[in-house]
């Protein structure tokens, strides 16, 4: 994945242990999801009727749930759906958000105003509520979830694009380019997009874990996947009815989900600091002036 590549090539600096651990975790989960068919012979759906709700054993490494399904197999296959839906939702959010944001900018003020009125509207609906509505309209399944995720997070991306664009467009070098006859497209390609790229990558790192969490919330509410399509949220929902009988069945997907999103958000935080456009490539101001500006604190 791209965060890994960017981080590793970060100028030969030594990686913080937290970052390294997060990378390992994300890598392992992605690998597990991709290699699920080869990692386990057991199907996530087959019920071992002789071994309902068992603890870990040689046969079932993480035990079985109340229906006798292998938890590890469900976890691995569930990772596929969870990651897939989260990634697709993020991609859709970016395609919609960045697309609409940039198009609105290129086509001028009126289009911009119109589009951002629409975006404002979508933003007023929380992701969960939008998900509920879309699933009501489109029926349950993975596609409505992806659409709901894309629609919910697209406004965030569009706003980020607009803010970054406004910040860049006010620069004198953009005015200078215009004075050399550079049109909107030239300015966009040469000055704004390169400065925007970092912001977008950072934003992706923020949106991806949110998509994964929202997907799990919707699955938990029974609005996402169908029962024969395991996701972590669904596993938690299924097992939550038997918390008292089978706590291990519910803890496994929770731990997996929290570990993944924590690792992703740690990576996102590192990425944000590494690519922060307000820090990157800005001249160090006069030392004393910079320090004076940082003066303050309450005491």
């Amino acid at each position, binding site marked *: 994945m791209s965060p890994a590549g960017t981080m590793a090539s970060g100028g030969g600096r030594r990686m913080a242990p937290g970052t390294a651990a997060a990378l390992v975790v994300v890598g392992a989960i992605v690998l597990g999801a991709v290699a699920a068919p080869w990692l386990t012979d057991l199907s996530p759906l087959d019920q071992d009727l002789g071994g309902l709700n068992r603890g870990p054993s040689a046969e079932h490494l993480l035990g079985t749930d109340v229906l006798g399904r292998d938890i590890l197999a469900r976890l691995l296959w569930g990772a596929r759906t969870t990651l897939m839906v989260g990634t697709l939702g993020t991609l859709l959010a970016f395609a919609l958000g960045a697309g609409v944001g940039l198009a609105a900018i290129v086509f001028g003020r009126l289009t911009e105003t119109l589009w951002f009125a629409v975006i404002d509207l979508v933003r007023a609906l929380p992701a969960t509520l939008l998900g509920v509505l879309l699933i009501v309209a489109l029926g349950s399944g993975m596609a409505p979830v992806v659409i709901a995720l894309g629609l919910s997070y697209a406004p965030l991306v569009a706003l980020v694009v607009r803010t970054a664009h406004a910040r860049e467009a006010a620069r004198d*070098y953009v005015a*200078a380019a215009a004075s050399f006859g550079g049109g909107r497209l*030239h300015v966009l390609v040469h000055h704004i997009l390169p400065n925007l790229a970092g912001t977008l990558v950072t934003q992706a790192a923020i949106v991806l874990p949110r998509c994964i969490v929202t997907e799990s919330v919707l699955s938990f509410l029974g609005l996402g996947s169908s029962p024969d399509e395991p996701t972590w949220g669904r596993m938690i929902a299924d097992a939550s009815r038997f918390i008292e009988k089978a706590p291990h069945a519910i803890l496994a997907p929770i731990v997996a989900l929290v570990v993944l999103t924590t690792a992703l958000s740690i990576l996102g935080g590192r990425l944000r600091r590494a690519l922060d456009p307000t820090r990157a490539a800005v*001249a160090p101001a006069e*030392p*004393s*002036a910079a*320090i004076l500006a940082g003066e303050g604190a309450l005491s």
Partner: protein
Amino acid sequence: MTATTELRDAPIDAAGHRAPSAAASDRTPGDPRAVPVLEVHDLGIRTGGRDLVAGVTFSIGAGRTLALIGQSGSGKSMTAAAIMGLLPPDVTVSAETRIELDGRRLPHADDGAMRAFRGTALAMVFQDPMSCLNPFMTVGAQIEEALWRRGVVDPVVRRERSLALMAAVELPTPESLRRRLPHELSGGQQQRIMLAMALAAEPRLLIADEPTSALDASVQAEILALLARLQARFGMAILFITHDLAAARRLGHEIMVMRHGRVVDFGAPRTIFTTPRHPHTRALVAVREMLERPPAPRRSAGTPVLEIAGVGFDYPPRRFLDRPSPALREVSLTLTAGRSLGVIGESGSGKSTLAAIVAGLKTPISGDVRLFGTSLAAHRFALPRALRRRVQIVFQNPHGALNPRHTIATAMREPLDLLHIGPRRARPERVAEALGWVGLDPDLRLRHPHALSGGQRQRVAIARALLSEPDLLVCDEVVSALDATVGAEILDLLRRLQAERGFALMFVGHDLEVVRWIADEIAVLADGRLVEHGPADRVLVAPASVAARRLVEAGRRADQPSDPAK
């Protein structure tokens, strides 16, 4: 005046600080033998193992002003912050430092103990009064807060005292101004409020850190004059920090020059001007002398390159339903080949908007601009490429004008590629050559902007604008963001380039001295209208409009070395 008596009868506070009037009557103001109010000995300021200020020693007597002058990064503001105990958390004062106020050592390392001195014996005014006032409090309440700090508990007395202070700083109608919020006041009024707040402390020492730098020229002169009058009346010592040698000469009994955190020169204003010892002081004085003797204007000749006819411009409304605010109204000007036109005005006068219109960056709502005889209105103000080559613009902030992600070479390739200048293969060569025109090492082209100094960046911006061999160069406040010595070099460079290449120059500025130095003719803008246009000499000697007269008088007052000591 009742205001005076009320202020002078101020009670002595618990800490036993004398009111300024008592101090003033003890000694003749300006008597050098008197015990100094402030004595700074071997001041050192460090951060992260680096010296920001080292070995600074000076003293200021009651009723005296020390003008501390230096360019950005010289450590002058740090020095002030150290005296006030307002240094940032990670900046420390060295152990050898001794700072004494009226012979008592200040506990500069102990913030809690320093607080007892701030707002009582020590007061300070800062550069940008708008942002230095609390936007949520009425200005009257902010002055009263300072009085409350000084122990004036009775609200009625506090009210009266604050009105008296506002009268003392020569604010008109204190009773109605009192209830306003800072943003409802002009910059000059805001700084007067800051001064009233400082006076409320009845300070022994007033530190004024660039108190006029954020203000318009005519207001600057008024504030400086007010500072001198207030000192004469209240007798406090003033540490006046500035980057402007003219202002230092005007207000200082002594001038101290700092550079890279050290004192490089010290003396009476006359000595500093006539026999500057340090090369840096000599450079500063040379800039003054250069600006005071502008070269002779060139003769008017040649064809008009720029004809502005009845141009108007509105800023778009910021919000739906707002009305657009006018920026320019009916401005008409002409400029002939090879000459330079100075456009001067205070902030908000519309001068930068005019520059942007001429460079084809903004579209006026009315009127026409003819460049080299071609009507821009006919092209809907979208300049055709052939015309773009002939007009170029340089901006104020040399850092913002260069994309931080691009090398100098990439930045300079941009106009060559966009304007199709010369054959593609010859372009790298031309970039190197252009850097030579402005006195830069061609090797700099591989660097990024942040590796260059402000002056170097501005030279790059000028070289880039010259790549297309323009016949008209628009310079929008190109030296305003630079230190005086660097700015003077840029001015000199512009003039030399103009002589070599013969382009016409439209130079937009707010500093009369700078504009006068470079311009053959001067246009004065006020509130979006052209109020004066003529040969530089005529506008300066006999300004016809009120706005021009204000500018000229402000400049003249700043020029005259009034030596308050005599």
